[in-house]
C-alpha cells in the first residue's frame, strides 16, 4: 500500500505543477491530497528527522506538519513555492518540538544525556582519531557523521541540511528560514565548520582522504 497506481496523472507526472496541486488541495481533491503525501512525506520526514533531538519523534512531528499544511493551504497564496512553504512549516514544527523537548526533558534528565552520548562515542570509537578509511563499516561512519551533525547548533544545522541533504538553493533556504541571503550563507558556512570540527575529533580529516580539495565543476 505504499505505492499507488497513478490515476492522478495531473499531479503525478513529476512536473512541478505546484499551483495545480495547491488548487486541488483547496478544492478538497482526493488526488491532490494523495499527490501531496506521496511527493512530500519522504523529504519532510528526512528534514524533521535531522532537526529533532530525538529522531524517534519524527513521525509524530511529520503528522503535525501535514495537518498544518492541510488546514492552512487555504491561506497559502503562492508568493513562495508550495515546497518552501511546506518546508517552512516543517522547520517550525521541528523547532517547536525541540523547544518543548528541551523544556521537559532537561529538568528530568540533567546531565545524563551528555553521559549517554559520551558512552555512545566510546562504543563507536575505540581509538580517538582514526582516518575515515580505517572505519570498519559504513554503518559506523554513518553513526559518526549523524552524531557530528546532531551536535551542530540547530540554527546552523537547519541551513546545512536544507542545502546539502535537500539540495535547496540559497534563495529557497532564505525563504524557508525567513532570513536574508547573507545570513543563509553565513549559517551554512558556520554549520559546515562546526560539522567539520565535530568530525575532526572523531575521524582524521585532511589526511589520506581522496576527496578533491578543489571541487570539480
Amino acid at each position: 500500500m505504499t505505492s499507488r497506481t497513478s490515476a492522478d496523472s495531473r499531479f503525478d507526472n513529476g512536473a512541478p505543477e505546484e499551483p495545480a496541486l495547491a488548487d486541488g488541495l483547496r478544492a478538497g481533491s482526493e488526488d491532490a491530497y494523495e499527490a501531496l503525501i506521496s511527493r512530500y512525506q519522504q523529504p519532510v520526514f528526512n528534514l524533521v528527522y535531522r532537526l529533532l533531538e530525538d529522531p524517534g519523534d519524527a513521525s509524530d512531528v511529520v503528522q503535525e506538519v501535514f495537518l498544518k499544511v492541510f488546514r492552512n493551504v487555504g491561506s497559502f497564496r503562492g508568493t513562495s513555492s508550495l515546497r518552501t512553504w511546506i518546508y517552512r512549516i516543517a522547520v517550525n514544527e521541528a523547532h517547536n518540538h525541540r523547544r518543548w523537548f528541551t523544556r521537559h526533558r532537561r529538568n528530568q534528565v540533567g546531565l545524563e544525556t551528555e553521559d549517554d552520548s559520551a558512552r555512545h562515542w566510546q562504543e563507536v570509537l575505540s581509538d580517538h582519531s582514526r582516518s575515515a578509511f580505517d572505519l570498519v563499516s559504513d554503518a559506523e561512519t554513518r553513526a559518526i557523521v549523524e552524531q557530528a551533525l546532531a551536535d551542530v547548533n540547530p540554527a546552523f544545522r537547519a541551513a546545512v541540511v536544507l542545502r546539502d541533504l535537500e539540495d535547496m538553493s540559497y534563495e529557497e533556504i532564505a525563504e524557508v528560514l525567513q532570513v536574508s541571503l547573507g545570513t543563509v550563507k553565513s549559517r551554512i558556512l558556520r554549520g559546515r565548520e562546526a560539522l567539520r570540527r565535530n568530525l575532526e575529533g572523531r575521524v582524521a580529516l585532511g589526511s589520506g582522504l581522496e576527496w578533491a580539495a578543489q571541487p570539480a565543476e
Partner: protein
Amino acid sequence: MEFPIVSRKTLACWRAGRKLSAYADRSLAGAARESVTAHLAECGECAARAEKLVQAREMLRTLGHVKAPRELTTSLRIIASRERARRVSGNPLFDFEPLWMRMRNWMQPLALPFAGGIVSTLVLFSMLVPGYDVSVRAASPADVPTAFYTDPSVKTIAPFAFSSDELVVELAIDEQGRVVDYHLPNGPASAPLRRAIENSLLFTTFTPAMAFGQPTSGRVRLSFRRSHIEVRG
C-alpha cells in the same frame, strides 16, 4: 552579521571566507569563483579550510535520506481523509462530532451497552449495512500468557462498501487504540477499495490490548462477509 572565524584576518582572507560556502558546494561561478580559486592558491590557511569544508559536505551527503516508516503513509492518509472531509463538508463541527459519535447518539435510545464493544457494534453495523456482517478475531502474541493478556477490541466501526464476497483486514493497533497499519492477507486490493478501507479505519476506534494490566500494542483481524440478512444473538 555573522563573521567567519579565521586566524589571520587579512582582507583577502575575509573576502574569500564569505564565499567559501558557495565555493564548497559548487554554487559559485564566474569571476567570484576565479577570485576564490586564486586566493586559495596563495593562502595555505584558507585552502586547508576550504578542503575541510568540502570534505565535511561530502561526508554529510553520504547520509542521504532516512526512509520514512511505512505506517506513516497510513497515518497521513487518515489525516488527509479527515481534513478533506472537513473541507468538503465545510462544517467545522465535523471535527468535534465524528461519525462514531453520531452513531453513539443514535444508539442511546436502544440502550445498548456501548462500552460492551463488539456485540453492539455488530448489531449497529448490520443495521446500517444490511447484507454484511463482520467478525473480529484477534491474534494474541504467543509470549504473553493469555491470563495476562486481552486482545484489542473494536469500540466503533464505520461501514463501507466492497464488492467481493469476503474481505479480511488485519490491523495493528497501538497502545492508545489507534490503527497504525493495516494489511490485507488475502492479497492486494484496488485503489478505490483501499481508500474505502482507509476512510472506514478513520472512524474505527479500538480498545487497546492489555498485557499485565498495561495497554499495549496488538493485532486484530476483521472479516467482512457478504451475507443474507441474519439475526445474530
